[in-house]
């Protein structure tokens, strides 16, 4: 892979350090007192999400990580994986559930996801920030609940997510959910 010099480092760049892929999440030029300049970086491991700190002397070179990003549409769940298709190349691939991990409740047919590949292997699948979901299971709102300060109730969506929704939302309604926090955003009018 091509290399970058310390003065070209930017947040968001994907680099390979000790044979592992990282995203740069922090970069600062440091030159204390009379000594040599260096670049202080914070690196987030692409898979484990662990953040480490590394410093590089000015002019040192870092290897770029063999990372590609692509958008693919979810077709369906299949056994222990999910089948995606690329919208323009029609290429299909199955991503194991172990990669989907915590995002499983946000996997919905016909939605386009961001996939990250490292050395050709998919390592991360992230959903759009907002998803529209149908409420498939919730208790009816009880009159008087608002007076006691309870304005939210648990609900299950068609994707399998469990979220908190306002008590006035009923089963069968479509709602917008923030996938970063798992929070209800609004009712969706069809």
């Amino acid at each position, binding site marked *: 892979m091509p290399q970058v010099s310390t003065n070209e480092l930017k947040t968001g760049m994907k680099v390979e350090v000790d044979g592992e892929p990282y995203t740069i999440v922090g970069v600062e*030029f440091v030159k204390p007192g009379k000594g040599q300049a260096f670049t202080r970086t914070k690196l987030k491991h692409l898979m484990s999400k662990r953040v480490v700190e590394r410093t590089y002397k000015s002019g040192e070179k870092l290897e770029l990580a063999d990372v590609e990003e692509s958008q693919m549409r979810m077709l369906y769940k299949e056994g222990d994986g999910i089948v995606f298709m690329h919208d323009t190349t029609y290429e299909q691939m199955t991503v194991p559930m172990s990669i989907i991990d915590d995002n499983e409740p946000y996997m919905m047919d016909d939605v386009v996801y961001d996939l990250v590949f490292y050395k050709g292997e998919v390592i991360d699948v992230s959903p759009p920030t907002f998803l529209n979901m149908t409420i498939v299971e919730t208790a009816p709102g009880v009159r008087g609940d608002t007076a006691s300060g309870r304005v939210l109730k648990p609900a299950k969506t068609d994707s399998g997510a469990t979220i908190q929704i306002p008590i006035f939302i009923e089963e069968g309604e479509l709602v917008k959910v923030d996938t970063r926090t798992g929070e209800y955003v609004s009712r969706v009018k069809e």
Partner: protein
Amino acid sequence: MSLGLKNNLLQRAQALKEVRAFFEEHDVLEVDTPLLSKYAPIDTHIDLFSVDLSENETGYLHSSPEYGMKKLLAEGVGDIYQLGHVFRKGEWGRLHRPEFTMIEWYRLGATFESFLEENLKLLRLFLGNQPHEVLSYREAMEKYGDYPESADPHIIWGCAVEPMLGQGKISVVIDYPAKEAALAQTRWVNGVEVAERFEFYFKGIELGNGYHELTDPIEQKRRLFQSNEERRALGKKALPIDSELIRALERGLPNCYGIALGFDRLLMLKLNRNSLF
């Protein structure tokens, strides 16, 4: 013109005016030594912009007005300051620009205490009425130098120690290791040779670097040669030695303290900004 831009320009103009008023009040003469010259400060880790003076002559933009000012000091001009632009190649970051404004000034016959007092007054024009502490390089290292990611003292200093300095007060770091003396005299403290060099910090930001100025021409020459050696070892070009500077020291540089302060960083702190413009 946007209100923000107008306000920033007004604040900058006001701050320049206040600095000049400060020096006038303290009987320090403003000088304006050349930015561009055939000889420039030689420092192992400061890289210069070179300029074609003519087809076969190279000049440099100065990284500090130190040499020019010391030549004037040796002429016997008395206390002087320069408020102007300096240039350092390859320095770019939240707190670094390849061109910035420096306040450099010298006080003849000063003591560390008297010079410190005057500089604190100057800093308070920007930082408000902050208290201060004086601590040695070693004390700061012992207190804050916990940084498992590196064993290099320079990196520990930059990553772990610096950010902790000047929190809620102005920190004045003294007694730097003798090998980081640059153009400062050295002295012996409890059997250890330390540099009579000091730095000001506020909110983890280095604001100024002061010296009890080296006056010995032989030692000065030795350090310039040494810097050039170190530059070569790092694969950098050695720089021409300014013989006029050596001659000035031979004529006699008066006993003095001097300091370089980063005007843009001071203004940045005054305006409560997190980075330079």
